[in-house]
C-alpha cells in the first residue's frame, strides 16, 4: 500500500518536472533558432546567468513558504530592508575610513541579522498569533516598506566599498559569482527541504497542520524555521542586488514579488501547500529567464511578453491536468 502511493507520487513529480524540462529545452532551442547570432552567444548566456539568481533565490524563498501551506508577500521588502540597513553599515563604515575587509564583514552580517529579524517577525505573527500568512506578510511588507522609506526618505543608499561590488559583478572562470551563490542556495534548499527531517515536517505541515501536530511535530517551531529560512534567502538576494546595483533602495526588485509566485507555481508547487520540488522551481525560473531575455532580444513588446508568460502559465497547468487525467484514466 505504502509503496504503491510512493510510486504514484514519484510518477506524478516526474511527469510535472519532465513537462517543465521539455518546455525549457523547447524555448531555449526556439530562441536560439530565432536569433542565433545574439541569443546563443557566450555573452548572452553569461548575462542571463547574472540575471537569473535574483528571481531564482526569491522564487525559492517563496516556494518553501508555500510548501508549508503559507505565503510570503514580504520577500522583496525583507530583502530591501536588509539591504538598506546593511547598506547603511557599509557606507557609514567606508565613510569613516574603515578598511574594506571589516566593513564588508560587518555589512554582510547586518544583512543577515536584519533579514532574519524580519523572518522571525513573520514567524511569530503566523505561527504564534495565528494570522493567515497572506494577511500577515502583507502587513509586515507594508511595515518593512515604511521602515525603509523612513530611513532613506525615498533616496538610495550608496557609497559602498568597491570590493563589495565583487559579489554581484565578478566572474569565476567565466561563471558569474551570483550564479555560484544560486547553485549553493539550490543545493542547500534541496537538502534541507527534500533530504532532511526538517523538510519532511514542512511538507507534512503543508498537507495538514492539525494532523501533523497530533503526530508529535512541533508545528510552531517548524513554521518559525521556514519563515527564517525564507528570510535568510531574501537577505542573500538583497546582498546580490545591492552589489549588482551598487546601492540600496526600497523599490529595488519590487517586480519580483508576483514573478516569484508565478515561478513557484509554474514549477509545480501546490499553492495550497504540501507539494513542490526545488528542481521544478529552478526550471521554472530558467524558463522565465530564457523567454524574457529571448523575446527582449527579438524586440517583442514588453506587454506582449507579459501576455506570453501568462499564456505559458495556463498552458503548463493545463498540460499537467490533461496528463494527470490521462494517467488516471489509464488506471
Amino acid at each position: 500500500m505504502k509503496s504503491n502511493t510512493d510510486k504514484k507520487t514519484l510518477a506524478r513529480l516526474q511527469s510535472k518536472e519532465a513537462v517543465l524540462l521539455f518546455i525549457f529545452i523547447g524555448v531555449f532551442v526556439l530562441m536560439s533558432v530565432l536569433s542565433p547570432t545574439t541569443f546563443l552567444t557566450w555573452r548572452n548566456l553569461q548575462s542571463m546567468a547574472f540575471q537569473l539568481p535574483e528571481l531564482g533565490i526569491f522564487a525559492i524563498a517563496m516556494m518553501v513558504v508555500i510548501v508549508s501551506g503559507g505565503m510570503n508577500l514580504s520577500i522583496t521588502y525583507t530583502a530591501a530592508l536588509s539591504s538598506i540597513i546593511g547598506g547603511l553599515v557599509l557606507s557609514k563604515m567606508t565613510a569613516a575610513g574603515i578598511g574594506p575587509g571589516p566593513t564588508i564583514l560587518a555589512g554582510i552580517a547586518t544583512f543577515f541579522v536584519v533579514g532574519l529579524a524580519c523572518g522571525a517577525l513573520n514567524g511569530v505573527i503566523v505561527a504564534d498569533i495565528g494570522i493567515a500568512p497572506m494577511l500577515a506578510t502583507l502587513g509586515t511588507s507594508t511595515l518593512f516598506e515604511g521602515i525603509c522609506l523612513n530611513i532613506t526618505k525615498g533616496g538610495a543608499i550608496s557609497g559602498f566599498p568597491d570590493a563589495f561590488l565583487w559579489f554581484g559583478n565578478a566572474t569565476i572562470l567565466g561563471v558569474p559569482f551570483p550564479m555560484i551563490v544560486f547553485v549553493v542556495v539550490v543545493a542547500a534548499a534541496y537538502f534541507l527541504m527534500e533530504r532532511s527531517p526538517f523538510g519532511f515536517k514542512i511538507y507534512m505541515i503543508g498537507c495538514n497542520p492539525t494532523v501533523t501536530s497530533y503526530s508529535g511535530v512541533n508545528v510552531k517551531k517548524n513554521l518559525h524555521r521556514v519563515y527564517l529560512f525564507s528570510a535568510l534567502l531574501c537577505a542573500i538576494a538583497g546582498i546580490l542586488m545591492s552589489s549588482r546595483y551598487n546601492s540600496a533602495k526600497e523599490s529595488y526588485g519590487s517586480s519580483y514579488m508576483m514573478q516569484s509566485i508565478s515561478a513557484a507555481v509554474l514549477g509545480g508547487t501546490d499553492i495550497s501547500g504540501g507539494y513542490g520540488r526545488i528542481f521544478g522551481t529552478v526550471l521554472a525560473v530558467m524558463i522565465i529567464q530564457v523567454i524574457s531575455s529571448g523575446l527582449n532580444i527579438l524586440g517583442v513588446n514588453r506587454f506582449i511578453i507579459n501576455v506570453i508568460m501568462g499564456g505559458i502559465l495556463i498552458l503548463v497547468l493545463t498540460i499537467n491536468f490533461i496528463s494527470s487525467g490521462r494517467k488516471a484514466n489509464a488506471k
Partner: protein
Amino acid sequence: MSRTRKFMIILMVLLAMTGLAFAQAKKVTIVVMPKLIGIPYFNASEVGAKKAGEDLGINVIYTGPTTADAAEQVRMLEDFISKGVDAICVAPNDPAALTPVLKKAKAAGIVVLDWDTPADKSIVDLSVHQIDDVVYGQHCWDLLVKEMGDSGDYAILTGGLSAANLNGWIDAGLSYAKTKYPKLHLVTDKVPTDEKQQVAYQKALDLIKAYPNLKGIIGISTPTPIGAAQAVQEKGLKNKIAVVGTALPTDSRPYLEDGSLRVVTLWDPSKLGYLTVVLANDLLKGKKPVNGQEIANVGKITVKADGKTVIMGPPTDFTKENAKNFAF
C-alpha cells in the same frame, strides 16, 4: 510518443505567439529606454524618438520595463548589451543602480547616454536633460506663488517618495522657497500618490479637511495635479485653493478649462525623445553637441560647461487658453 507530441505542440504554440516581427537590417541601432513603458508621458517621448529614427534612417528600439523598477531596467539593459547595439540612452529609475550595468555597456563599446533623469555623470558620454532640475523646481514654486500669493499654507503631492527626479525638483523648490518666499508654509511633508489620479484625489480631499487654511496644492508627476484639481473642483473650492503642477496638457484640459487647475508646466516629451536620438546618432558619428546648436524640430539647445550636459530648453506653461493647441 505523447512526450514528443507535447513538445511539438508547445514549440508550435510558442512560435505562433512570438510572431515574425523581427526583420532587422544591419543599421545603426539605438536603444532608448524610459523608466517604464505604458504611461502617457513616456508614450509621447516614444513618438519623438521613433520619428527621429525615421528621419535619420536608423533603427530605434524604444522599450523599457512595465513597472518603474531599476532591477528590471538592469536586466533589460544586459540583454541589449548581449544583443550588441550601438548606443544606449536610458532614463534611470535610480542613478546609482545602473552604474555597474552602464560600465559593462561601455566596456562592450556601446555609447551610453542618459535622458530625462541623470545617471552617474562619470560614466555617460552625454546627458540629455529637458531642463535644469533646479530651474524647473524654482519655476514650479514661482507658478504656485503667482496663483496663491506669497503667503499661506500649501501642500505637496508627489508621484512617489523614491522617484529621484521628482525629489530633485521638490528639494530645489523647497530650498528656493525658504529664501525667496519665507511666508509660504508647507503644512506637511510631501504626500505620495502612487502615480495615480485616484490616489491623488483621495489624498487631496484628506489634505483639504486636515488643513482648513490650505491655499495651494502643488502636484509633482503627471497624474497628480489632475487628481488634486478634481478634489478641489468637487468641493467647490477652486477660488480658494490654487492647484498647480506638472502635467500633460491633453489630460489636464478639462480641469484647466474650469479653473480648478490653474496652470501646469512641462516640456514636450516627444521633442525630448527626438533630441535624444539625434544627439546619440551624432555622437556615434563622432560629433559632439555645441552650445547654442540648432536642432531641427527641437530648437536651440544649451550645453553646459562640462561639454556633456545638454539642456533642451525652458518648459512650457499650459493654461486654460493654450492647452488645446498641444497634442500630447
